[in-house]
């Protein structure tokens, strides 16, 4: 990875963290552990830690635990080679102990890729639920433990109808739990439940973050989500293929904003709470495709309705982020245009 690419990532982190990083001071000199640490989330948190260490002398020691630890070197070689980032090969499902010096834990294990889920659904559920239990169990034995942030999903609310307001943490909606399609969402609900039980029964200082949709460098383009596919199509010269009529509304938070939010929630979120993490600014998939196309000098064309969407009701998926703003003064720093431009630039320079 070239110096300019790495500098751009550092700048992204500086923009998301802002000039005043006092709120993160409790992490100075700390040991942070991320389970499932080599995915999009873990990589961005590592990038943010690199920024804090390099530009603000935080001296954080970061451990990334993952069964795919070796893949990290190819995904983010500039992070893998750092002395303050340690890779730790391990699977949360058969976890005996966490590194004993871990003080702050982000539990990010559990792939959101639905293609993997349905190939072995019972095992998927077990990985998410028992994996969370194993991590919390091991974390409860850590002497220096400060806090645990367990990553959940905005899918726990069930489908958001077109007429619904953005999803707030105070809305306890759901979905039909007797339907296998709810596998991932229900498993995430169960994992949150396990966290709540550990907090209540053993006083474990754990809170949850419900993640929505994201964009940014390090995202793998072969994943089954619209934005990944649009970028892949555009980078290949197009056309950008939009399934359905493109009226579905989503929102995307940039990777460095996500990383900053997670570290802030880890430090100052309320124990026991579950915070929405994502952008509240919605965009239709059609408009998203146009925005991506506009980033390219030779604009790729856009094909609508590559898969029929007849009879499928128009949907949206937008978080209400009032709680993160009220409790931790968190805001979206990188707007969607910036996010798309930077992401395209990163992929082009790769």
């Amino acid at each position, binding site marked *: 990875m070239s110096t300019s690419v790495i500098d751009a990532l550092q700048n992204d982190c500086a923009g998301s963290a802002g000039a005043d990083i006092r709120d993160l001071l409790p992490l100075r000199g700390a040991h942070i552990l991320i389970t499932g640490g080599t995915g999009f989330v873990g990589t961005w948190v590592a990038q943010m830690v690199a920024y804090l260490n390099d530009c603000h002398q935080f001296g954080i020691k970061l451990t990334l635990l993952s069964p795919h630890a070796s893949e990290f070197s190819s995904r983010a070689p500039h992070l893998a080679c750092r002395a303050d980032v340690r890779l730790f090969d391990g699977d949360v499902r058969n976890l005996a102990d966490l590194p004993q010096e871990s003080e702050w834990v982000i539990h990010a294990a559990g792939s959101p890729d639905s293609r993997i889920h349905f190939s072995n659904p*019972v095992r998927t559920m077990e990985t998410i639920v028992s994996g969370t239990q194993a991590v919390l169990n091991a974390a409860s034995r850590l002497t220096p433990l400060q806090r645990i942030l367990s990553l959940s999903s905005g899918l726990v609310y069930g489908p958001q109808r077109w007429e619904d307001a953005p999803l707030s943490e105070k809305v306890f909606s*759901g979905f039909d*739990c007797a339907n*296998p399609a709810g596998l991932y969402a229900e*498993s995430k609900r169960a994992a949150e439940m396990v966290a*709540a039980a550990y907090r209540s029964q053993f006083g474990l200082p754990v809170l949850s973050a419900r993640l929505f949709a994201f964009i940014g460098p390090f995202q793998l383009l072969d994943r089954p989500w619209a934005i990944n596919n649009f970028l892949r199509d555009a980078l290949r010269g197009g056309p950008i293929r939009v399934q359905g009529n493109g009226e579905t509304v989503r929102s995307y938070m940039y990777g460095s904003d996500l990383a900053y939010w997670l570290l802030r929630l880890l430090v100052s979120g309320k124990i026991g*709470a579950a915070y929405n993490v994502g952008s509240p600014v919605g965009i239709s998939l059609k408009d998203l495709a146009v925005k991506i196309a506009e980033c390219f000098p030779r604009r790729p064309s856009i094909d609508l309705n590559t898969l029929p969407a007849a009879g499928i009701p128009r949907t949206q998926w937008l978080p209400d982020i009032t709680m993160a703003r009220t409790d931790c003064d968190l805001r979206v720093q990188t707007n969607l245009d910036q996010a798309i431009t930077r992401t395209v630039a990163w992929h082009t320079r790769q």
Partner: protein
Amino acid sequence: MTNLLASDLDHILDRTHDLWNEIGGQRIFITGGTGFFGCWLLESLIAAGDRWHLGTSAVVLTRSPEAFRDREPRLAAHPGIQLLAGDVRTFAFPGGEFQYVVHAATEASVKQAVEAPLEMFTTIVEGTRRVLEFAHQHGARKFLLTSSGAVYGRQPSEITHLAEEYAGGPNPADPTSVYGEGKRSAELLCALYAKLYGIECKIARCFAFVGPHLPLDSHFAIGNFIGDAMRGGPVRVNGDGTPRRSYLYAADLAIWLWTILFQGENCRPYNVGSERDVDIAELANQVVRTLNPGLRVEIAREPVPGRLPERYVPSTKRAQAELGLRENIDLSEAIARTARWHKQRAISGSV
């Protein structure tokens, strides 16, 4: 030995006689067989087997066969019932084929939800997984999960009767949601096993019940009221008496559960309960009117004026329309029968 439930069992058999043929000569595996649901399922299964010479037997998983023998010696001694000691999460699979599996292990204790939520949650989720795995490995065709109306989360006050289509859920970040959230996961596991292995999974979302075998000293308001009344009152209502509840009589419950197991549609949840709701204050008064009209009802707090009542009341249109199920026994009759059973049981020992 006379069976104190003889007339209730006749009531059940009269309304289920078409169902039983398919289990002639079969072995049924039942978890939670020693609880309230389990006792009614076993009582009615044995009664049907004896009346129609079905040659059906049940293997009943229980943590403590001794406790079950002490409490229900007649059931425990019946040749059609075999007790298997074990925890639902870890039990060793008994050999042989079981085409029917009933997973009725319910940890509905409020005390456990508060003191040991993790154990309650894992017992429900890992227990259901283990029983499904057993069912899969031992040739089960039909599987019944006794789920709960708690899967919907808090019922909105403006909805008087909650239907299966209601897509709500409990708050998973609240530790007191473990029971409802656990049952949601259990339902999902059923849906997965049904899809993967072709087991027909029948889901009964159970609300509130009254009848013989219901403990009078637990957290169930109706049991406590009957207990208060039998001890000579006063009947004490904790709270302001405004929450609305409904109670299906246990004999009707047994009819509903067997019907759902045999005839319910795969992975189509059915609410099980009563649509005839009362508020808790009225329930206390009804208990007094039925059992001893002279008793006093004490309500702990005044209701807050204008506040909408909290509700836990199902719509059972689906079970009625699709399975022809009915509420046959009304609330005052249910209260009277429950009290009579407890009185006779106290006199005759534990038979």
